[in-house]
């Protein structure tokens, strides 16, 4: 409902669910342990979350409705980080199980099997909520407005409907439902700090499979995926994580707008991408100075700062590769860590399993990632916007699941260890110089391609596919090439990361790592060519300093992200560019 009406990709919805579980844990602890007390407690939780949701909407989301989708994502991810620290401060780091009262442990005999009565209640709760929502949407004036806003928000505004009240109420309802979900799920699990991200990925997948903005589609998809997961455990116990995302990938390939979704109303507020110009001379001088400093760095700084700098170089190429496809290419990815991870695992496996020499193993990283990206890209480049982002997320989760579950080859959670570079690069200083050369070189090559005819073809495909095709430009092929190049560059970054740390873990492919790349690009500014470089350096610096300085790094980082989005919606480099041009004009 929230996405349908406000068009905000709300990452923090998982946090609302998590808070729902925690609030329910607290509230239910103070209520009588009978069914009536439970019902009161769950309803109270939903209400508390609705109020919190309304507050969140008024304080933050209202200010970013007109921002690009990915900035909204960034801001709401900042909320996710802050909520994690706040929840930990209030409820502690331990998992909190609900002491299940006697009535909840009752069983019903179904077809000769003992079936938990509470699970029956949960099965009934889904259709019940759907029914109530349906009545609300189809039998009330408020519902009519919500449905109208879902199909054409601007028209509803033009008809004089107060959007602020509509949006706040929709967000409150959505948040309340998230709280209800968290509370209802509590007896079968625990309230813990991992709930937010685990539930938000499932929710994104379900909403995308069902069709963005379609309530019945979401229900259909959740039942479908629930059943597939339940039976998948029996049939293919190792593939449970893969199944969900494979279903999503298959759905999007066949029905690009989800099961019951329709192509969205064309927004009349389409953003005009700003003009791209060559860097001014002053920026070139500054860049040259920075490069000189980076080359001399190993002689000037200590081992810790050097390891941070090595990490920054790897992050720089990772961010630049994402920016390449996302900014000029117009293909936002939520799963860029897939290519980083493929590169890292490619290099590690080439070293440990095949015994390949260092240069070959390092070359295997971009080759593996690039080749897989080229194949997967065939499906991706047909989509756009949120659907494209979701398909990339699905693919990254599949790669993650393979890394995590196929422990015979990948070592599972333990990862692959002892992936060390040869003697010549064993010294952190020489390895840093290698990383600097390859990463800065790679990023500058990508930058060069953006100013070359290929970059113009890429931007042309993004600015107006209609016109691009009418001047004979093969937009599909250009986008595919950009996708494969971005994958290969991220793969190289991954390969270097493997040798830098001497090990590879599934976290390289995690959602968190994909979000890191997004944050760096968006911090720097999507619409500037130098953005990813600035973003990667600032983000790595911020991250590593914060990590050292405070126990509350998530809270501080989250708040910093939210503040940056509100203050610099066009990113740091974008804001600097604006100031520079304003000064020149």
């Amino acid at each position, binding site marked *: 409902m929230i996405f349908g009406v406000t068009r905000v990709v709300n990452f923090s919805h998982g946090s609302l669910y998590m808070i729902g579980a925690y609030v329910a844990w607290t509230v239910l602890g103070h209520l009588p342990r009978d069914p009536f007390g439970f019902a009161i407690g769950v309803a109270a939780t939903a209400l508390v979350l609705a109020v919190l949701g309304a507050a969140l909407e008024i304080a933050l989301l209202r200010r970013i409705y007109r921002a690009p989708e990915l900035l909204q994502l960034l801001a709401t991810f900042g909320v996710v980080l802050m909520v994690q620290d706040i929840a930990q401060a209030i409820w502690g780091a331990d998992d909190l199980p609900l002491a299940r009262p006697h009535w909840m442990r009752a069983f019903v005999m179904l077809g000769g099997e003992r079936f938990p009565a509470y699970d029956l209640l949960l099965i009934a709760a889904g259709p019940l909520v759907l029914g109530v929502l349906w009545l609300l949407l189809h039998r009330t004036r408020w519902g009519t407005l919500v449905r109208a806003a879902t199909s054409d928000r601007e028209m509803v505004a033009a008809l004089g409907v107060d959007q602020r009240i509509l949006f706040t109420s929709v967000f409150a309802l959505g948040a309340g439902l998230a709280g209800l979900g968290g509370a209802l799920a509590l007896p079968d699990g625990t309230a813990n700090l991992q709930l937010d991200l685990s539930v938000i990925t499932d929710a994104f997948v379900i909403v995308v499979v069902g069709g963005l903005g379609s309530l019945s589609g979401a229900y259909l998809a959740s039942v479908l995926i629930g059943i597939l997961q339940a039976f998948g455990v029996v049939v293919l116990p190792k593939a449970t994580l893969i199944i969900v995302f494979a279903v999503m990938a298959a759905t999007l390939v066949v029905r690009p707008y989800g099961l019951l979704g329709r192509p969205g109303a064309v927004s009349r507020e389409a953003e005009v991408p*700003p003009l791209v110009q060559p860097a001014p001379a002053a920026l070139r001088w500054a860049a040259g100075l920075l490069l000189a400093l980076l080359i001399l760095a190993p002689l000037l700084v200590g081992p810790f700062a050097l390891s941070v700098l090595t990490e920054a170089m790897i992050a720089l190429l990772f961010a630049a590769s994402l920016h390449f496809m996302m900014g000029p290419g117009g293909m936002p990815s939520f799963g860029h860590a897939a290519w980083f991870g493929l590169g890292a695992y490619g290099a590690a496996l080439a070293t440990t399993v095949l015994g390949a020499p260092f240069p070959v193993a390092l070359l295997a990283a971009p080759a593996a990632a690039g080749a897989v990206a080229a194949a997967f890209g065939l499906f991706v480049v047909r989509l756009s916007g949120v659907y494209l982002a979701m398909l990339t997320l699905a693919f990254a989760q599949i790669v993650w699941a393979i890394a995590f579950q196929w422990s015979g080859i990948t070592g599972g959670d333990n990862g692959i260890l002892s992936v060390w570079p040869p003697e010549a690069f064993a010294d952190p200083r020489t390895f840093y110089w290698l990383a600097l050369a390859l990463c800065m070189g790679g990023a500058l090559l990508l930058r060069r391609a953006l100013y070359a*005819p290929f970059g113009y073809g890429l931007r042309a495909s993004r600015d107006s596919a*209609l016109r691009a095709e*009418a001047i004979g430009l093969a937009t599909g092929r250009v986008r595919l090439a950009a996708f494969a190049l971005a994958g290969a560059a991220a793969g190289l970054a991954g390969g270097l990361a493997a040798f830098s740390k001497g090990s590879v873990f599934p976290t390289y492919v995690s959602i968190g790592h994909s979000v890191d790349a997004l944050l760096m690009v968006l911090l720097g500014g999507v619409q500037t060519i130098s953005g990813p470089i600035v973003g990667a350096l600032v983000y790595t610096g911020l991250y590593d300093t914060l990590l050292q300085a405070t126990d509350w790094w998530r809270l501080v980082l989250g708040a910093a992200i939210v503040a940056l989005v509100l203050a610099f919606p066009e990113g740091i480099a974008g804001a600097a560019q604006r100031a520079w041009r304003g000064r020149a004009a």
Partner: protein
Amino acid sequence: MTVLAADGLQKTFRGVPAVRGVSFAVAAGEMLALIGPNGAGKSTCFNMLNGQLRPDGGRVRLDGKNIAGLPPRQVCRLGIGRTFQITATFSSMTVRENVQTALLSHHREIFRFWRAARDQRVVEADALLHQVGMSTQAERAAGVLAYGDLKRLELAMALAGNPRLLLMDEPTAGMAPAERSALMALTRKLATERQLAVLFTEHDMDIVFGVADRILVLHHGELIAEGDASTVRADARVREVYLGSGATSGGH
């Protein structure tokens, strides 16, 4: 010399016929106007010619070769340029870069990754901009141009492919009257100089009767009249369709 010949074009949308057996030809250096009331099937005809729509029946021959059903990209490569009713340009580029991109695409030089595009095909791009009278605006961002200038930029981009036929969908819609006749005079000049065949749709009857060599009148998806200005003006069915509104009064 015939550049493009349409033969029995047909298109049906969900059982509703939009274009029913339309045939015509356009010759090099000729300006052919396609007119008719709203919903007559003009845009559908257009979109079938440049490959945005696949015809249900009939053939489109460019220099004798059937191109019906080819995608827009290939149709462009075979020598058909087009401008759109709602202008489509690359707003993150300058005016000159828009034309450069069209030139680079035409010469199959897009898949190059090293030399800066800014320095490539500059002379040709400037020549095209000069032809459409946009030289002074070459450095401006396409995203901030006035509507009439966007139309002229589109024209330059269409010409970059060195087309044999130019399709112009409502070329003067949204422009001031003085600008309209200037753009059409420019088109006339280009058609004559380059021996370019031009097919255009237009609502402004002053423009149509003033500039077109021949006029096709479409009504309910069928061709009801064809000929020069005086023939079409005198045609009884055309008068009937336009409700005797006086064919030269502008509007439709």
